[in-house]
């Protein structure tokens, strides 16, 4: 099988619960793919890749072998860039790079590396005196010294400054240009959509593609659920913009919509996306999907409402059935309408 990384019908269960159900994923040369998931799934996935835990089913192949078959060959085909990977913080940046240059027998020059990571003026500082973002760039430098065809980054740009994010994005483009594969594991959808050409989501229901306008979807394989999802609903999708990309949402994915400064903010799974449509336009499109205009500046997906709270006789809130238990205002006039809809008198 070709592909830098081939994940074949991988599944992980612990005791009674499924961490993730069977999925397939292949990373080819030149791919930049992000997988958006919870922390737990990400940790387990990385542990399986680095051989710390066994998968319940399926296998992961790098360089054509699994880690059990040939540990050295497997590991030589991948750079595992862990989140907050350990760092020798008493060393100077330059010494740190030359240490790993020798360990990985790299022919990249230190100066070139300092330029890529934009650490030239910090090269003689001890790493512990650097900021969080600069330390992250030191890690990028180390990762570039490791030569492998596939790079797996865990939360590469969490809480970093704009400069570091730019450095990271240009590193991913550089790797892509060199024909390497990049896989980003993140819990931040916005970051995934900004960096990657293709964004996938793994949760308890499996692997799904999050549609973006950019990039092709060649490398996701035969997941039947996925095909069913991508095809027929195009017309009913709600477009939102993330930087220069357009992301499409299925109405059931939306928790609620908030109007803010003439823009509509669409909240899905705890993340915010902006839409150019007005609330009125969205209301008319979404009405028959069970959405309800509960407030002048809110539309809520009634399927996701758990509770109606009465604060005073004139003030109400809707509590959603999500992790954050988001509360949404419900205006008095709309309360009556809602009661009607629910068949309460």
């Amino acid at each position, binding site marked *: 099988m070709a592909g830098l990384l081939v994940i074949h019908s991988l599944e992980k269960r612990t005791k009674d619960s499924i961490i993730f159900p069977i999925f397939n994923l292949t990373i080819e040369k030149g791919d930049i793919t992000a997988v958006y998931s919870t922390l737990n799934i990400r940790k387990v996935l990385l*542990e399986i890749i*680095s*051989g*710390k*835990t*066994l998968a319940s089913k399926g296998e992961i192949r790098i360089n054509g072998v699994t880690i059990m078959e040939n*540990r*050295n060959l497997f*590991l*030589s085909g991948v750079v*595992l860039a*862990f989140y*907050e*990977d*350990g*760092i*020798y*913080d*008493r*060393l100077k940046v330059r*010494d740190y790079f*030359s*240490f790993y240059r*020798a*360990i*990985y*027998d790299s022919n990249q020059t230190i100066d070139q590396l300092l330029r890529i990571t934009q650490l030239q003026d910090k090269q003689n500082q*001890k790493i512990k005196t650097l900021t969080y973002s600069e330390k992250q760039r030191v890690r990028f430098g*180390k990762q570039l010294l*490791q030569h492998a065809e596939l790079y797996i980054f865990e939360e590469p740009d969490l809480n970093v400054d704009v400069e570091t994010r730019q450095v990271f994005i240009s590193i991913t483009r550089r790797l892509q240009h060199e024909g390497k594969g990049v896989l980003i594991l993140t819990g931040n959808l916005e970051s995934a959509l900004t960096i990657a050409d293709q964004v996938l989501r793994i949760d308890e229901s499996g692997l799904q593609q999050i549609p973006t306008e950019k990039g092709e979807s060649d490398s996701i394989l035969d997941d039947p659920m996925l095909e069913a999802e991508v095809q027929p609903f195009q017309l009913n999708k709600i477009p939102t913009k993330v930087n220069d990309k357009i992301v499409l949402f299925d109405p059931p994915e939306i928790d609620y919509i908030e109007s803010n400064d003439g823009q509509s903010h669409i909240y899905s799974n705890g993340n915010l996306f902006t839409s150019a449509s007005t609330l009125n336009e969205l209301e008319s499109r979404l009405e028959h999907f069970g959405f309800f205009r509960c407030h002048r500046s809110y539309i809520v997906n009634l399927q996701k409402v758990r509770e109606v709270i009465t604060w005073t006789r004139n003030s109400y809130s809707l509590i959603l059935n999500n992790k954050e238990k988001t509360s949404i205002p419900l205006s008095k006039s709309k309360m009556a309408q809602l009661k009607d809809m629910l068949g309460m008198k």
Partner: protein
Amino acid sequence: MTFSMKRMYAIFLKDLKDLSKNMFITSSMLMPLLIAVLYSRMDELSIDMIYLVINLSFSTIGVFVQSAIIAEEKEKNTLRGLMLSPATILEIFGGKSLVTFLLTLLTIILSARLIDYEPSSISLIAIALIISSVFYIGLGTLMGLLTKSVVEASVITLPIIFLFGFSTLLQTLINTYPILSFIEYLPNVQLAELAKEVQLGAGIEDIWGYLAIILVWGIGIWLLTTWFYKKKETAG
């Protein structure tokens, strides 16, 4: 994977630089030196007393420093990176042990100077010291792998420092408590006995028994360490 001198040297250099900036660890070198200064005031030092200082250097530097640098790699999560890198176990521990070995030797030479110890045969004693250091550094490596942080390592090495540093003094108790007779076979006691023989003019043919016992300890501890590392590497 082949053994690469370049990688081992890189690890050696990195740890040397790192250690030179780490006061917590380097200050432990002072303990044997301090005791050496105290003893140097006394007139007649028996070989037992001299080897108390030397064995203390072994257990504070060889065991404690080695375990601390390895425990720190674990604490800061950098050992994982090394384990996943092309560096082999021989290169990783070779580089680190070399740093500890040089520090141990330096401390022993300094403290021997301070207490005016002049063995009758420098070369025989040097051989014995080098073989001993193999054991102590191996023990330090194992302790480093067993612990998770520098603080934990310093706690766990305390009884070891006591056992190997002071057990020459416990020998007097053997007659009263025969159960303690295993102490005679500890590498530190063997080393002191060996030094006594050498001081009386013994040659290599008289002391090889002692050397062999110390060497068996050294080989044993490294086998255990390697087994433990392999187990960790493929844990799960």
